[in-house]
């Protein structure tokens, strides 16, 4: 893929309406040493028991997006997460949590995070 545009990152933070979960979604476009484009997805989840508590990290995942998914990653960067992707992102949050407890492998958690991009419709 040719190196077009700037290097940039779009970082979204949102606290769910019950104020108990904080989700961060960050999509970064950068350049490799050979000047080709690289996309990274970072997905973070923080939780707290009560609204008066401070948020605690459950896990932070950083996933390098496969070249085959670049078109979907670019579409996500330009158009945002669609509803299928947000459902996948919530499920990826659960996977991340299970991985942090050692109940599933990190590879499965990474696969769940990659799926956030892969399930994009158009």
């Amino acid at each position, binding site marked *: 893929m*040719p190196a077009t*545009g700037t290097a940039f990152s779009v970082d979204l*933070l949102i606290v769910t309406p019950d104020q108990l979960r904080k989700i961060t979604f960050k999509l970064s476009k950068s350049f490799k040493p050979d000047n080709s484009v690289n996309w990274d997805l970072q997905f973070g989840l923080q939780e707290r028991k009560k609204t008066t508590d401070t948020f605690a990290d459950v896990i932070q995942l950083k996933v390098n997006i496969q070249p085959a998914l670049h078109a979907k990653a670019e579409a996500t960067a330009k158009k945002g997460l669609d509803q299928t992707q947000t459902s996948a992102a919530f499920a990826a949050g*659960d996977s991340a949590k299970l991985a942090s407890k050692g109940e599933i492998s990190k590879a499965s958690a990474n696969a769940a995070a990659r799926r956030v991009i*892969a*399930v994009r419709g158009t």
Partner: protein
Amino acid sequence: MRIFESVNLRRSLIGVTSCVLILLAATAIKSQVCTHKADPAFYSQGNYTIREVKLESPIDFLHAISSQLNALRSQLPVQPGKIFRLVDLSTGKDIIDKALDDEEKNLDPRSRIRVVLGRISNCDEAGPTPKLDVVYRVFTTNYNAYLTHTWELKTAELERPATTAATTQARGFLTVKPYIDYNRARQLHAGGLLRLQLPGVFDHLEISSSGSSNSDVETFQLSGSSEPENSLISRVDYRIAYTHENLPAGANRLREGTLRGQAFAATRPVSKHAAIFRVGVSFEGGNQQTNIAPINTSAVEDSGYGGLKTYVGATLRTKKYSLAASYGLQLGTSGANTNLDFIKHLVDAGFTARWIPGNQTPGDVHKVLALETQFTAGLIQEKGPVPVAQRFFGGNHTHNFIEGDTWQFRSQPFIRSIPENRLDSRASLGGNRFVSFNVTLAKAIWGRAIIPKDIASDPDFLPALEASKVSARNILVTTYLSKLPAFDTISAHMDSVDAELVKLRAMLDTLPADFPSSLPSEISEPLEENRELATDATTIIRSIIQDKKNLPSKLSSLLKEANSTTCLGDDSCSQLTSLRANLRTMEPLLLSAGFAQASAVAKQVEESLSQQQPQLVREYDSVDPSAAVRMADADMKLVGTTLDSFVNELNWIAVSPVAIFDAARVWPDRFGFRYAVGGGMRLSLVNFNVTVGYAVNPQPHAGDSRGALFFTMDVTDIFK
């Protein structure tokens, strides 16, 4: 309204403005064009040298961490004199991102969008040694879900366009805010505010004091707030405060000492117009004195005072308009008794409009036309003696009905050509009725947008910003799905899926940790791989199903895919479909490996899930999600409005001509209505703005001046 007359300060402002203009002009002359901006790899071939590295932010809030950003400059891989490489540009962006993450650790926004851009500029392509500049730009904002939607913030945006958002997100353990001010009644006065953040029920302790040669005001208060969950009420504030005031009123003085216990509440936005309703109550007691001679009216010059104040109000905010209306009721006594001596009624309504030119050039000053109007009226029903300080005096200083509340609700007539407490020609007595009407019109004619031209016209910037808004909306929609009772049935039906997964997990647990080494690798390796996938998938899906409260948000991920025929090829299958594929792969492998019973279980579970999944998808599709969409849209409408203000309305420097008109009167007063007509200029800088002008009193009476020069100055400490 604060009035200040200072030639030196005006000269300083003219000087600052001139310097800014010269610098901007010099920057424009110096810039060179990069002809391959769309293909930055052109500059990354080892022949371009970096001339300068810039770190820029359009939001003054980030100036608070400018020292950290400047410190970062030396850590960046791009440095003046070095060969430019795209990978270094990217690494520098990542370093800045991390520094901003660290800086925001102590903030607690409900939502935030941040964009960091790294790009090249000012390319010298024709010289013997090609050079370029590297520019990093940061755009960030967050929204205080309570303040963002309210009338007072919109008003603040009008008067302090560059600082309002930053102020609402400023947090700190200790805030010290000195100020100096002038009005004709109090003359030059100065003071300060000390705010200490506290643990426990009360969030803050605040002490403020100001004084001049003829006046003093002191306040001590403890305040706190809470944000109830799952309630129509968005926020409750409470406060205990003591205020002492000693102020001139014409030839006389008004002195008050009052202890207050107060509570205020605001609803979440309701209706499609996102209306917010407010209620407030204040119990007050204290004393008031004047130095006027004893008078033969129902007014009491020296007395105790007690009372109850309450109000209801509402705000509406659209992209262009803000509307606020309030009704206040005060029941008062004139001493240490329970007799109802007076009833005060107040009505206050304000309307603000902003018209944005439709054909704006990205990055140019937003030439917004702003109209601010306010109508206020009051009436005192006298049942007994009324403390003088409770009567209506009026002038060019605004008085809030309930001191300390963020809700701006005027309790006195306001007119900019008459000094504070001098509207009533009798001055010493005050009126028992009043009405006032105020209009301010301002139009930005020169300045710079808060989003600079380079960012606003960057082809990646606005799409990325819009994409983040779409993401936020869809995350909210998905979250709100969990609130729809219609999903209860399908959530219950997922229990039978869970039962199958229990059987599957039991089967997987019976398999040996290591398959026999006698198995050929073409069986053992895929078997091992699929067992691990199936084990993790079972754990994940069971975890999701058992979290009933949040299950609806994840049903789509569990059950649905766009194309079940091709989804295995691009990893887009639903989690159940992927698991079923694992089981279909495992079934013959298990049989070949000699685990016939396990193979049978895999087959039985796969078949059961194959039967259940289509039915569950049909049930999912039959649920109407529009209620969740409506709730999300209500939230995002407010976020979007604020974000649009940053992109389309706000300037980091702007000059606006201002026209004003006021009309006000109190009863009884033989002079009737009084007027103020005038004009001036408003200069808004990053965290500093002034409005200077002259308000004419067209019908001056004995003792009145022809008008007043007004000078409004605000400095906001946003860096704590």
